[in-house]
């Protein structure tokens, strides 16, 4: 006599088989011990209905969440990926919303897909949209909350970003490729080009915006909860390490205030951009509040 636990254990294995249960004689015997069948369906065929539904449902969710990867690979190859992924990363969550959360890591580490890092990056971008879609809410920025603050309060201020905002550093313009693929524009694989993007939720839709390296370094510091003054210094150090002050790149990106003899330091460049960023990022809804309290984040 099979117990409830034994029956569920056997069925959980059978339903997650990619190939029909009848292809596996040993599993078929187990299924026959559990299901009784009827005059139209054998016990194995009864269980196989659920197995088929399992794959249809799960692959469909992955197709929706990773549509650009399906476009990049083609239907059949995507289905093979989905099968391998689901075997390696079964859903333990109560919701299929979480089903693809390991896809980027899976693609980055599992051959043959790991030989094409573009795919893992696509998965990272796709998943950023999933997280931006239903990530936490935050009240809109209130300009009155910063009125009357003295200049020496700002270096200690912490800028609070929208909790659902996703910041990505990419090796390809994968975000453009994703949109093209989803719109049916049949984009070609892009040339490698480092880019920094923000995926965020607008009032109605999800958006993706490319930003420059300075803005990205600054946003990343703010996202960590670093106070504004220190964030500027750290971001400047990062930018300085990537392109030291006085290099052609850096000089070209600095504005007219560098017209004198001395080139601006990365810190000065960054501080010069700060006011513009602040107003842009509040209007985009990225900045939700400013905390002037001295305690930690």
């Amino acid at each position: 006599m099979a117990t409830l636990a034994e029956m569920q254990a056997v069925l959980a294995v059978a339903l997650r088989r990619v190939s029909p249960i009848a292809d596996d004689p040993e599993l078929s015997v187990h299924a026959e011990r559990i299901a009784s069948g009827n005059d139209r369906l054998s016990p194995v065929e009864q269980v196989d209905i659920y197995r088929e539904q399992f794959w249809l449902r799960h692959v469909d969710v992955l197709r929706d969440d990773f549509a650009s990867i399906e476009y990049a690979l083609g239907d059949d190859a995507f289905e093979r990926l989905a099968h391998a992924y689901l075997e390696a990363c079964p859903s333990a969550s109560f919701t299929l919303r979480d089903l693809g959360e390991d896809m980027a890591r899976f693609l980055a580490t599992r051959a043959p897909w790991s030989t094409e890092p573009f795919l893992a990056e696509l998965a990272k971008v796709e998943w950023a949209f999933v997280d931006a879609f239903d990530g936490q809410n935050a009240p809109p920025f209130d300009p009155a909350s910063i009125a009357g603050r003295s200049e020496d309060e700002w270096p200690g201020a912490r800028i609070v970003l929208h909790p659902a905002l996703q910041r990505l550093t990419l090796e390809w313009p994968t975000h453009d490729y994703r949109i093209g693929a989803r719109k049916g524009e049949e984009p070609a694989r892009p040339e490698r080009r480092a880019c920094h993007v923000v995926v965020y939720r607008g009032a109605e839709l999800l958006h993706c915006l490319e930003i420059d390296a300075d803005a990205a370094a600054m946003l990343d510091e703010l996202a960590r909860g670093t106070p504004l003054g220190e964030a500027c210094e750290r971001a400047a150090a990062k930018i300085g390490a990537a392109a030291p002050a006085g290099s052609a790149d850096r000089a070209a990106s600095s504005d007219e205030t560098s017209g004198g003899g001395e080139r601006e330091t990365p810190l000065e460049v960054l501080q010069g951009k700060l006011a513009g960023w602040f107003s842009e990022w509040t209007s985009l809804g990225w900045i939700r509040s400013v905390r002037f309290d001295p305690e930690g984040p």
Partner: protein
Amino acid sequence: MSFRDRHAIPDLGVGVGFRIPHYPRVLESSEPLMDWFEVISENFLVAGGRPLDNLARLADKYRVVPHGVSLAIGSVEPLDAAYLAKLKDLFARLDPPWVSDHLCWARAPGVHIHDLLPLPYTREAIEHVVERVKRVQGTLERPFALENVSSYMTYRESTMSEWDFLAEVAERADCGLLLDCNNVYVSSRNHGFDPVTYIDAVPADRVVQMHLAGHTDKGKYVLDTHSDHVKDEVWDLYRRAVARCGAVSTLVEWDDDIPEWDVLSAEAAKARTMRAELLAAPRRPSLVATAEAG
């Protein structure tokens, strides 16, 4: 006193599921378009964003009853406490008159199958489910109803009919029932039983809600697809169920190949008319007696 009376379960009339293609129409209409709405609980157990905004807007205008798909009441795996806590939080925001999930299993060690898998109809399964329903009710602290599922397989271990199993679980766990007339029909076709026998055996006073839906004939079996109009045979079962159970909130499920709002709305209107005619007709003696006792 009946389960419905003890828990003051209201008759909300006829509703439909809240589905994405209809969001603009439903949320932007200044007129009420439906008696009530059902939402899939799991779709709204998220941190924030549009799903929660839409739900809040819906709940501003309509009675919203959440219906879960992931509880896995019959799984041997322990109940998911984090999931129950999230449900409880959602229910606190909606304050529904009852909540529901399915009489099925879905979780196994390390994996959620995300299906409504039938249980073997055994003493062991009854003991297991009754114990878990009691714990779920204790946690959620709301009237809780179990829905009968469509099934495609039968177990060698089963020692009783599905309707006897369902009735005993409901009586012993003291829970409500969500009677899905289409699921009764689908399973009756798949397993060769008389669906009328099933409807007649359901503890009528425990039925807090009914489901109607379309299905698809796959030749060797019938699949519960929620992708079409309610079939005539299912309307017949619904009539019988209403005659037995009385004024019970009814919901039309249409989740795949979702039609224009007007088509769905007409399907709900059909149920509304049918229900009103039956409820206006003289009650059968047993129902009158129940009503007086309540």
